[in-house]
């Protein structure tokens, strides 16, 4: 499923990329951080590792620029996840529309028994549930800044946004997250 990702096009043609061995070592060093970021994006341990695997495959093929490897790494990861969400929404819409049901959020629909068990555990995790309810824009930017610890400038590069927009968006995302958490925490 994840191997079929197309991902958004990233133009690496005019950038110097890390050499293969250096890239692999870089990915090893970033593995923990990448997995945490993926978990905060996906909300599922199962999906997180699938996403990390897809991301690693993608950057091993396309490379990472030497001048901003971190920003590109999170960007590839984010783009792959957004693509996957779109695909799932289309699939879910197709399958559910026959029964006339409405699909509210892709993560509410477990794809296999393992994921179901993980979701059962996660159900009690208020922050996880609150994150799931955020818009993708808000979840992405909070994951980049709070979990990955990227600077606003790095996020601006990764998302191709002005720094000022990053600043206001992350503030709105935080407000939204707190509203979702409500009195649960």
């Amino acid at each position, binding site marked *: 499923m994840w191997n079929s990702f197309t991902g958004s096009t990233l133009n690496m043609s005019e950038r110097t990329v890390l050499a293969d061995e250096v890239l*692999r*070592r870089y990915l090893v*060093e970033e593995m923990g951080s990448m997995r945490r970021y993926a978990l905060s994006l996906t909300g599922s*341990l199962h999906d997180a590792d699938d996403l990390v695997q897809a991301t690693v495959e993608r950057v091993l093929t396309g490379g990472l620029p030497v001048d*901003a490897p971190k920003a590109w790494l999170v960007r590839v990861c984010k783009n792959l996840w957004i693509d996957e969400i779109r695909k799932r929404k289309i699939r879910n819409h197709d399958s559910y529309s026959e029964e006339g049901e409405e699909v509210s959020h892709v993560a509410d629909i477990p794809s296999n028994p393992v994921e179901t068990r993980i979701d059962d555990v996660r159900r009690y995790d208020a922050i996880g549930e609150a*994150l799931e309810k955020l818009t993708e824009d808000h979840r992405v930017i909070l994951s980049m800044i709070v979990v990955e610890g990227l600077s*606003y400038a790095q996020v601006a590069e990764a998302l191709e946004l002005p720094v000022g927009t990053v*600043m*206001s968006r992350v*503030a709105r995302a935080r407000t939204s997250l707190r509203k979702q958490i409500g009195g649960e925490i």
Partner: protein
Amino acid sequence: MIQDEDLTLLSAYADGELVGEDLIRFSERLLKEPALRRELDAIRAVDELMISHARQIDDKPVPEEIRALVRVKSGRSATKLFAMAAAVFLLTIGSFILAPQSTIDYAVVDELESGQRFVQGDDYIEVIASFRRLDGGFCRELVTSTAHRIVCRQNTSWRIEVEVPRQDVPLNSYQPAGAGDIGTIDAFVREHMAGSTIETDEERKLIKQNWR
């Protein structure tokens, strides 16, 4: 009720993104306005929860499929060796750090397979690869939260042969391929490694045999 503009400033302050006069002015306001301080505490508390939530995955081993992808392939092309040698030459001028001949008691290094991570509190040890030294001994490349190291087996323990600090490198200042700690580690590996890195099956045998 805190205004949107102040929420934006609080958020940026919490992220360390306010600088200069903006930082001074807002710091002064924080001293005077308890409501702002409470809001800042709330932001930080939620941030901590987010980070804790994401760290759940640290307890789950990295899947073999991913470890296999990032494992350094054995064998190097002549072109790559030349490029790396050039980078290493530059490194030896400035940043090559040969650790003192200290011995570390990394019992956990005996047991970890390449790609596995041992977490203890805020720190961790993750083994990247194992290899034979030219003299027949064994070495392992590993990272902790603060350092990138090569340790080599000596009697029943592991001695640090190379240690370079790890640090978060800001955007636009990432060192080119071959520079920094990665190049330093590579220099040691190239100088001392016999053949290529040890494959998974052989590594498992060595772990069972306590690296004998």
